């Protein structure tokens, strides 16, 4: 089980309090599809992904980004049981969605950059440490039920 220090938990929750889930989620997913275009393979039914402008304006991308980030909110409330929290989602990503777990790592890195751009200097090195740790643990939990 992952150990979270009191400081790490505080850094995570204090940053999260400043996050606009809909905006950041949409931006993170859009950037994932733009920066790592091969990730578009999972979204062939999302319509127009032909350019960065199309991706950013795509309502399905926005909606799905919001969904993904909303689930992060759940993770943050359950830092001491991420495997349990993500058990069903893990099965879904393996059995139905067939997503290579490497993609969770890519999205995690993108999300950190989005948070950094919104928080500026408030996103201190120790903040980044806590959040990259969280991204790693979430990715691990989402991959945990893969077989």
């Amino acid at each position, binding site marked *: 089980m992952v150990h979270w220090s009191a400081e790490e938990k505080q850094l995570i929750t204090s940053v999260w309090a400043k996050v606009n889930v809909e905006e950041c989620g949409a931006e993170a997913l859009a950037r994932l599809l733009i*920066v790592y275009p091969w990730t578009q393979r999972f979204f062939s039914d999302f319509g127009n992904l032909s350019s960065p402008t199309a991706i950013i304006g795509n309502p399905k991308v926005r909606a799905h980004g919001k969904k993904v980030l909303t689930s992060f909110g759940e993770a943050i409330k359950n830092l001491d049981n991420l495997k349990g929290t993500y058990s069903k989602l893990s099965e879904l990503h393996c059995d139905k969605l067939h997503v290579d777990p490497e993609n969770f790592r890519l999205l995690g890195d993108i999300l950190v950059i989005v948070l950094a751009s919104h928080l500026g200097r408030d996103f201190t090195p120790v903040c980044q440490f806590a959040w990259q740790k969280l991204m790693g643990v979430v990715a691990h939990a989402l991959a945990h039920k893969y077989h």
Partner: protein
Amino acid sequence: MVLSAADKSNVKGVFAKIGGQAEEYGADALERMFVTYPQTKTYFPHFDLGKGSAQVKGHGKKVAAALVEAVNNIDDLAGALSKLSDLHAQKLRVDPVNFKLLGQCFLVVVATRNPSLLTPEVHASLDKFLCAVGTVLTAKYR
């Protein structure tokens, strides 16, 4: 992975905007890397890695200068970084995975200091560029 004309233009634009602050960005990125990914400290047992370390600042300046040199010779990264590539292969032997970590931290620094500069398109180009630099630096490893 090939840098398109647009990528090159985006990357040059970033470094033109950063200008003389490149050294600070380099130092910032290194500091973040040591804090965010503590395992990277294993390559610097001879450094004082405490906050505000002059050695880290100095090394960040070196890293930034190399990136600037790379940007100024973006059409021939292998040529521009050849000596550094030899150094990393023969002497430093930093595991290739760590270049991605430093790259991530550099992007975070740009995001924190100049978020409007890091549009999604520029983000993509800069990420590609940093990957290309890492690839060149590890190209002669074996």
